[in-house]
């Protein structure tokens, strides 16, 4: 671990208990994380030379946002969404498109390496115009789709939300991955038959399919000129946004809104009787969750030391399942639990990627393949996770921490003792 990250965490640890008494706790936290993030922006590349290690740290932050946002709907609201990757994909593609466009309008070119020279500072200055717009746009597009998906399906029985979110995520991924233009720039003979680009319905399909096929299909979107999406979000943005999201998630949980949501989860009829409108609260929480998912996807797409290509394969069902694992292992409804779950899952995923490429494993794998088996460590990891999750649900359905917030015991007690 690097000292900047530790400083960040210890700062949070010292600040939180005071913030319960201090009315300005939130503001102090924001300013504190702003400073930590600013220091990290300039020190992190110095302290950690290896960009793959920096990538792990940044991915942890992104996944924390993923887990925190999924926690709102899966943990606090007690619904079950299994298509969070769909919202991440929406955010990622939106952000990538916007960043690419704005980068071109700022003059284009490759982003300077992380040094203290003039070019770097100019790019850092530009990021203040580009990154907030891209992140906000990505999150808003995801939230809009969240509303479209959530409004009808949250009126139905709980399982239907699971199916619809899964279907939604798959439609998105497959549309981006498989849309190709055939004759007359249409996606099929049927569309061609109703008029192609010039007919009555044609133009709608035409614009849609031209746009979808411009996203690069299965290979992924790598900027307008194919040189890769300019990765503007340095450690400053990633750390600062993650801290903000954590603060918002914390505040949401202990707000009246969060309490209403938990009441709804415990007993829908009883809470309806005391004036909590189930559909409104469920849809709002779903939209917030989608917003967070879009934000995480956007951050993931433009994060420095990350992948400059936005690929549909990054947003498969496995991504959604990993997000669910983060929330469930940590404890559904717990903010700290979600963050710890994200750290745990990200670190194991990255470790396994490293180990899989080691020579010993490669040799063992090839010798096993001769016997008809395969040593796919990622498959083994997924199997173990699935086993752990089943065992957890059987033995301890509330997750490791349940709804508690470890490290923040004092606040929990005072808050829970307070009248609603």
């Amino acid at each position, binding site marked *: 671990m690097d000292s900047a990250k530790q400083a960040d965490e210890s700062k949070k640890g010292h600040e939180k208990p005071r913030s319960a008494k201090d009315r300005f706790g939130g503001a102090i936290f924001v300013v504190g994380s702003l400073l930590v993030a600013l220091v990290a922006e300039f020190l992190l590349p110095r302290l950690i030379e290896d960009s793959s290690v920096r990538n792990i740290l940044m991915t942890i932050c992104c996944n924390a946002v993923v887990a925190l946002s999924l926690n709102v709907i899966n943990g606090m609201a007690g619904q*079950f969404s299994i298509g969070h990757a769909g919202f991440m994909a929406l955010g990622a593609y939106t952000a990538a498109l916007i960043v690419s466009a704005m980068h071109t309008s700022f003059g284009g070119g490759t982003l300077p390496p992380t040094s203290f020279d003039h070019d770097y500072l100019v790019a850092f200055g530009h990021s203040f115009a580009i990154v907030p717009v891209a992140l906000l746009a990505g999150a808003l597009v995801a939230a809009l789709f969240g509303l479209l998906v959530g409004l009808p399906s949250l009126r139905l029985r709980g399982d239907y939300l699971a199916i619809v979110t899964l279907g939604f995520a798959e439609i998105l991924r497959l549309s981006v991955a498989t849309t190709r233009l055939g004759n007359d720039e249409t996606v099929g003979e049927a569309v061609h038959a109703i008029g192609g680009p010039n007919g009555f319905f044609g133009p709608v399909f035409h614009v849609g399919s031209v746009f979808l096929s411009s996203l690069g299909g299965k290979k992924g979107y790598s900027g307008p000129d194919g040189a890769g999406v300019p990765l503007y979000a340095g450690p400053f943005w990633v750390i600062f946004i993650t801290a903000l999201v954590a603060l918002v998630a914390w505040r949401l949980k202990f707000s009246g809104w969060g309490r209403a949501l938990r009441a709804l989860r415990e007993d829908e009829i009883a809470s309806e009787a005391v004036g909590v409108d189930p559909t409104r609260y469920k849809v709002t929480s779903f939209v917030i969750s989608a917003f967070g998912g879009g934000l995480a996807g956007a951050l993931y797409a433009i994060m420095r030391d990350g992948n400059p290509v936005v690929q549909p394969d990054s947003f498969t069902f496995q991504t959604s399942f990993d997000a669910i694992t983060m929330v469930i292992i940590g404890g559904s409804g717990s903010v700290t639990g979600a963050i710890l779950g994200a750290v745990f899952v990200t670190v194991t995923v990255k470790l396994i990627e490293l180990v899989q490429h080691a020579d010993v494993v490669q040799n063992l794998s090839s010798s096993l393949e001769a016997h008809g088996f*395969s040593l796919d460590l990622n498959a083994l990891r997924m199997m173990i996770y699935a086993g752990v999750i089943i065992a957890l649900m059987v033995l301890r359905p509330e997750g490791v921490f349940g709804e508690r917030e470890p490290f923040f015991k004092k606040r929990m007690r005072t808050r829970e003792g307070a009248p609603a």
Partner: protein
Amino acid sequence: MNGILAPLVTGIAQGSMIALIALGYSMVYGVLKLINFAHSEIFMMGSFFGLFALQHFAGLNPVLATALAMILAMFGTSLLGITVERFAYRPLRGRGKSSLLRITPLVTALGASVFLQNLAQLLFTARQRPYPRLFAQTRPLIFATAVVVMIALELVVKRTWFGKAMRALSTNEEAARLMGIRTSRVIGITFAIGSSLAALGAILYCLDQGDAYPTMGVGIGTRAFVAAVLGGIGSIPGAMLGGLLLGVLGELVKFSGFEGSVDIPVFIVLIAVLLVRPAGLLGSTRAEKV
């Protein structure tokens, strides 16, 4: 008009296989009110069991070999289905309906699905394994099997003691137990029947379409699941109807020259149906559920 006939026939053949798998989803949902996400992986396992059996009986008469392979694969998947039920669903039963416990069965179902898929990945490797080409024409076999199975299942559910127990369980589990029905045993047998139908569908599918591979359950299983929801999850004729509709839809989409994946219209249909008629085409709150 002649051109559209071929995709229609192919679609009905595809649809019958999808319907066989959809029945498993529907039966389990009828009894437990649980979406058994692991069912698609049981289908995948069934195709591997069938493949190994067919390889073992390679020298025999093709009809005999297929029949033996079907029986063995059905037996294998029944055991697997019972095991999944025993470890992932039974411990959760009778815990009441409070707070987070409502979504725990969905989580374990999902976990069981991921577990089986990755287990197959490890045991059988990710490569596609071709099925032997035993029959020049597989469609008569598919139609015959599907019709026989549907009639047999309808008879079991309507005419036998076990079917009565299943229907009782579906109406009210608590009351059924109080009336002396061994609910755990009935649920176990339901899983066994559903899983063996998945194996049957898997072997027919592979004889018709070709390869077995660990992720095959995702595509076909999802389509079967959509068929079950489309027809009205919990109803046997609904699963059949949903399967046929979906099979024909898939072939018509291909016929239209659509360049994208067939799963896109499949999911769009699913969401549209759920929005307009959440209980599915034949399902309703008062309909008799299996």
